[in-house]
């Protein structure tokens, strides 16, 4: 195999998402990024040329590369997340292009929940507006480690440095209020490609890197937790064969920390202690397992372990709690019921819960906490306390994105109604 293709086996993966208000140019930017980095195939390009012509557009609309649903193409907006993939010789990327319309905020949260970086777009004519704030707040709540603010449509403001600086200053104030640590700014034109893959000819005053360059080089902070050993048991493997008659393996994905054979562990909720006998995979035993690996753990003792239990280090355990404080994004048309009952999904565990209290709601315009309005409706962000029917094994979301997150499910409709981050 040539060097060109074998290098592909050892690439780093960056997952990023777009955010920002409707029509700020998110989909156009992703189209431009793919097009200018030669990641578009001829038949895909032909297809969108034909669609653009049919609609009577003068130029090819690059947003059509991600806006794949009929309704999206008809209305010229994004409704649900589109996932796109591309690789440069430096990195491999998974892109989630999300909708800006407030009505589809839940889909934005879906795309952002697994991202390592967020591109927040701002239309240079409009500056920082409510939806920019809402998405920034959500990106920060989800603890996306890198924020790149793309000040777009610079072609429509004469590529003005003044306009760029004003928006940059405005956003910096927001970032400060939200405690966003890593934020960078780039003036771009998604439509014409300025500073996306190639440097702009019209903005000599900007000396920074292009967007692609930045995406290829940002240090991917290892935001995985390698300290606190946590292994939610997903499935118990019991082969029905003579050869493996006594085999009992606990299958799951390491949420955080590192496990090694010989490690002393504890199983929650029983609290029973044991030792890791082996870490099994289809390809043989491993001498250690760490996130995000999927493995099967064997223990030396024959104790009762089932799905929903968690194998943890004996030195350092999560909190075992029934009364929990969390920030939530409400994602359903039906408002949260005061003292309402919902099903919680947390790691591989499931429990019924009751909402005890709404401590405050967030006013995304002022970024202030509102305490006199307890009605949590569609797209609201709130801090709540809930009581679960059985203990959950939790860490704060800030320390652990896996054992700190949960979803709430409406027991009547089965819909996922909220995303939660444990405080």
């Amino acid at each position, binding site marked *: *195999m*040539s060097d060109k*293709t074998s290098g*592909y*086996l*050892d*690439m*780093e993966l960056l997952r990023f998402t777009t955010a920002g208000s409707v029509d700020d140019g998110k989909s156009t930017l992703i189209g431009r990024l793919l097009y200018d980095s030669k990641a578009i*195939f*001829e*038949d*895909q390009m032909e297809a969108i040329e034909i669609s653009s012509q049919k609609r009577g557009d003068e130029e090819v609309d690059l947003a059509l590369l*991600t806006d*794949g*649903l009929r*309704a999206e193409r008809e209305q010229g907006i994004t*409704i*649900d*997340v*589109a*996932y*796109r*993939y591309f*690789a440069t010789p430096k990195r491999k990327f*998974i892109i989630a292009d999300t909708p800006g319309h407030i009505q589809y905020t*839940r*889909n934005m949260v*879906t795309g952002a929940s*697994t991202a390592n970086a967020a591109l927040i777009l701002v239309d240079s004519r409009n500056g920082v507006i409510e939806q920019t704030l809402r998405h920034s707040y959500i990106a920060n709540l989800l603890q996306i480690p890198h924020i790149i603010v793309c000040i777009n449509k610079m072609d429509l403001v004469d590529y003005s440095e003044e306009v760029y600086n004003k928006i940059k200053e405005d956003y910096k104030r927001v970032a400060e209020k939200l405690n966003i640590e890593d934020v960078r700014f780039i003036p771009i034109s998604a439509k014409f490609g300025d500073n996306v893959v190639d440097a702009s000819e019209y903005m000599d005053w900007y000396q920074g890197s292009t967007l692609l360059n930045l995406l290829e080089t940002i240090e991917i902070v290892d935001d995985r937790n*390698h300290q606190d050993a946590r292994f939610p048991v997903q*499935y118990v*493997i019991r*082969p*029905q*064969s003579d050869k*493996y008659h006594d*085999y009992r*393996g606990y*299958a799951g*994905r390491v949420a955080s920390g590192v496990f090694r054979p010989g490690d002393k562990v504890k199983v929650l909720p029983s609290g029973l202690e044991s030792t890791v006998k082996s870490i099994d*995979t*289809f390809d043989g035993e491993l001498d250690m397992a*760490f*996130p*995000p*690996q*999927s493995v*099967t753990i064997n223990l030396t003792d024959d104790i009762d372990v089932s799905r929903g239990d968690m194998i943890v280090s004996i030195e350092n355990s999560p909190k075992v709690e029934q009364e929990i404080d969390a920030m939530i994004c409400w*994602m359903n048309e039906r408002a949260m019921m005061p003292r309402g009952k919902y*099903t919680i*999904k947390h790691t591989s565990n499931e429990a019924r819960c009751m909402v005890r209290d709404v401590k405050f709601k967030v006013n995304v315009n002022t970024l202030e906490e509102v305490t006199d309005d307890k009605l949590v409706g569609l797209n609201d962000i709130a801090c709540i306390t809930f009581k679960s029917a059985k203990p959950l094994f939790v860490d704060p979301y800030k320390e652990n*994105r*896996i054992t700190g*997150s*949960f*979803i709430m*499910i409406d027991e009547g409709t*089965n*819909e*996922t109604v909220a995303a939660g981050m444990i405080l």
Partner: protein
Amino acid sequence: MKEYNINHLRELEAESIFVIREVAAQFENPVMLFSGGKDSIVMFHLARKAFAPAKVPFALMHIDTGHNFPETIQFRDELMDETGTRLIVRYVQDSIDQGKVVEETGFDASRNKLQTVTLLDGIEDLQVDCAMGGGRRDEEKARAKERFFSHRDEFGQWDPKNQRPELWNLFNGKKHMGEHFRVFPISNWTEMDVWQYIYLENIKIPNIYFSHEREVFVRNGNLLSVSDFIPMRDTETVEKRIVRFRTIGDATCTGAVESEANSLEDIIEEVAASRTTERGTRHDDKRSEAAMEDRKKEGYF
């Protein structure tokens, strides 16, 4: 490489295994759809990894259009024997014989669309509550919108404008009676990832993926294989060419590509240099702009 780092293929593998185990845990009667193509072969390989040393705890299901490449069927049967896996086959021909669907006529007739009815009937008869598929988001623009866990109503339909949010890796497989789920464990894999993984893991695939001589004819820019199922126009002529298949689907709508690639290394180099998508060889997607979305709404794979 850092101490606790795995490359992106191993990361994708871990994600898919997680999803497959989640299906086994959340559903009572799941099946894994198996077409004999490279994506379903990789998906099945991942399923074996997920449950070793136990056997895969669900059956595979093949929706057979009857318009197969014989090599694929032979490959399928050998793989099932070797791994001791239970296979369910449902035939489009049965749906036709029962009068549930009407066979298309004309030169471009295909059973591709009819498969949906056979699939949904199979799901209903066998009370399947989840069908895993090898669809990938990079294949097609409507697929790029699909969740890992995709809810289907009691008519088997997908509502792309109203999908459940899917946060982190917390999958909500709850449903009412009669509804089911489609789950796509290899959603985040690209064509290149699949080939690299087949190479890395030394996975067996049907030989029609490799270069061979075949009788073909040209239609709408595609090279279709000469067979009893595809009527040829007078103006179309049979030629012998050196080809291989980039995807394997129903024989009536899967085109071959001219290629000399006869090893996995060659294929990987060819895919890296390719300027068209693999679905460019699929006749079924060219019927209209939203062909895939429309088929998927009705309950297609």
